């Protein structure tokens, strides 16, 4: 099986060759890979180097790899799927709408933006109180506020849509 795996900015072409062999961008490695007792813990030996990582999948299908105190977010795609998807022109859509959803249930303390506002990356969109803390939720990019769906003092559930940015 061939996969395209993206970690950060970098893409790796990874092929599972069987018999403990893996090729990464054409270089072959012998890996001794084992899940540990059905836990989300994995051990891998490569050339005597020992790697232990916890690995789990996020809801958006990315894999979170915690390895030696560093957190990596990895996107793994079947090469064939990816090719098909690219051909169909899906994905790579940077111009679309960004929707800020509540990362946790809480109380909306303040919405410092209004519909029509021009905003910059890093501007605070919503202040949400949860776990006894006030949390500033910021915009990941420049844009215009197209919709504001919550108001000050409102109690909301996790994943409630709060603000749309276009």
């Amino acid at each position, binding site marked *: *099986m061939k*996969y395209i*795996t*993206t*970690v*950060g900015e*970098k893409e*790796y072409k*990874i092929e*599972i060759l069987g018999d403990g062999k*893996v090729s*990464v961008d054409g270089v072959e*490695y012998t*890996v001794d*890979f*084992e*899940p540990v*007792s*059905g*836990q*989300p*813990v*994995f051990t*891998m030996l*490569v050339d005597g180097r020992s*790697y232990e*990582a*916890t*690995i*789990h*999948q996020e809801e958006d299908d990315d*894999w979170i*790899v*915690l*390895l*030696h*105190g*560093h*957190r*990596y977010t*990895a996107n*793994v795609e*079947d090469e064939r799927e990816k090719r098909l998807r690219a051909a169909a022109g899906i994905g790579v859509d940077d111009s679309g709408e960004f929707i800020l959803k509540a*990362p*946790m*249930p*809480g109380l909306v303390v303040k919405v410092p933006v209004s519909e029509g506002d021009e905003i910059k990356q890093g501007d605070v969109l919503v202040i949400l109180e*949860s*776990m*006894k*803390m006030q*949390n*500033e*939720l*910021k915009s990941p990019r420049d844009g215009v506020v197209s919709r504001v769906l919550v108001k000050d003092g409102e109690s909301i559930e*996790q994943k409630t849509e709060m603000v749309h940015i276009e």
Partner: protein
Amino acid sequence: MTFTKVLIANRGEIAMRILRACRELGIKTVAVYSEPDRNAMHVRYAEEAYLLGPAPSNESYLRADKIIEIAKKSEAGAIHPGYGFLSENADFAQACEDEGITFIGPKPEAIAKMGDKGVARATVKAAGVPVVPGTETEEKLSDEDLLKLAPDVGFPLLIKATAGGGGKGMRQVNDLEEMPAALESARRESLAAFGDDNVYLEKMIIGARHIEIQVLGDNEGNIIHLGERECSIQRRHQKLVEESPSPFINEDEEFRQKMGAIAVQAAQAVDYVNAGTIEFLVDKDKNFYFLEMNTRLQVEHPVTEYVTGVDIVKEQIRIARGRQLGYTQKDVKMNGWAIECRINAEDPYNNFLPSTGIIQFSSLPTGPGVRVDTGVYLGFNISPYYDSLISKLIVWGETRGQAILRMRRALEEYRLVGVVTNIPFHQSLMEQHRFIAGNFDTKFVEERFSIEKAEEGKETNPEIAAILATLVAHQQTERAAHIIQRGKRDTSNWKWVGRWERMHR
């Protein structure tokens, strides 16, 4: 005062801490819990457990009436309030007293006096304790009064809520022009948080450290101190790392004893009984100023326990039972160095945004010199209803350097899946030069520390991460394909899962 059963009016790690102390003293225990905490460790650990109500604190852990009712029904002779919730509520302490239940803490009067920051400042100042310069009055001051007094206090200054705590109702003001707006918002926030909009002014001490002194007092008027804790590593007035001793004081025993003696004076000023903490701001020239007194057990008490060998919670219970202090000031010696990291469900890469979720895997660090205080377990749901503290990781070393190295080792061993934690923040901090050198003030984390910057140049291994993720994803795909022919599925790697599944059906 002679009780043999204690009700613990709290949850999480501190409920566990108190339960363990009771267990070691042969005292029976009663837990209380909110609906989502039905399966919590403290419920399972106590001998008795009673439901308080739904998740929100004001319907459960803040229900003083219900807690007292349960104490009476279960014949608990004493209540330990832990920290937070009802721990600094003078009315609750008074209600316990009225019902003949021992409140494991100070007298209601001491709580009330120290709870009003204005009264507290005036009281300790009268007892000869230096306070941060500011508006020296117990009376309520109008905006007009405050605008007049501000230039005398000097800029930059802080507006603070007299009923305050945890940074709420607090505003930094750099000049007179900013004052009116800052006053308005501070009052509004204070009113919302504490039902009281009274505020006062305090001069900003630049480059200050937050150093606090642990005190213990018994019913016979003996008060001792257990040395200092350094708590300058904080973010938005939330402590993140604490240590004892303070690297700023370290071997200056004279200075330690001077601060300790002043702290004891402050406690004496309110006839203090039981465990309490005097918080000071300390400037570069070793001037120190009373900030406030916490009239309860602190989150960070374990670092003091590690270096002094004194079990503060057991000592609290002994005092509440009417015993004399088990120690004189001379008995208290600090040995080695202890550091505590608060492990929170917060994302250090995303503005410390709190995280919720179910703990899917947890493996605690163990071995020499490591202590973990926690109330969470595999399957526990970190909910938005309570604070984000997952556990406290405390280490001891012979020297500060050894303690830091041990903390690095322990952080590396800690495994938690299911919720985002601030462990990477602590890991970066423990490698940061200024932290290692002990060279930091209370603004350090906010102004001088960035995890992204700290991690720059750190050796990473994205290729290995990529291989690992791909192998796990690959295996998942293979398993999905196999799942139809269940009987035949590959048993070598997944033997355990099979066993586990059988076991639970």
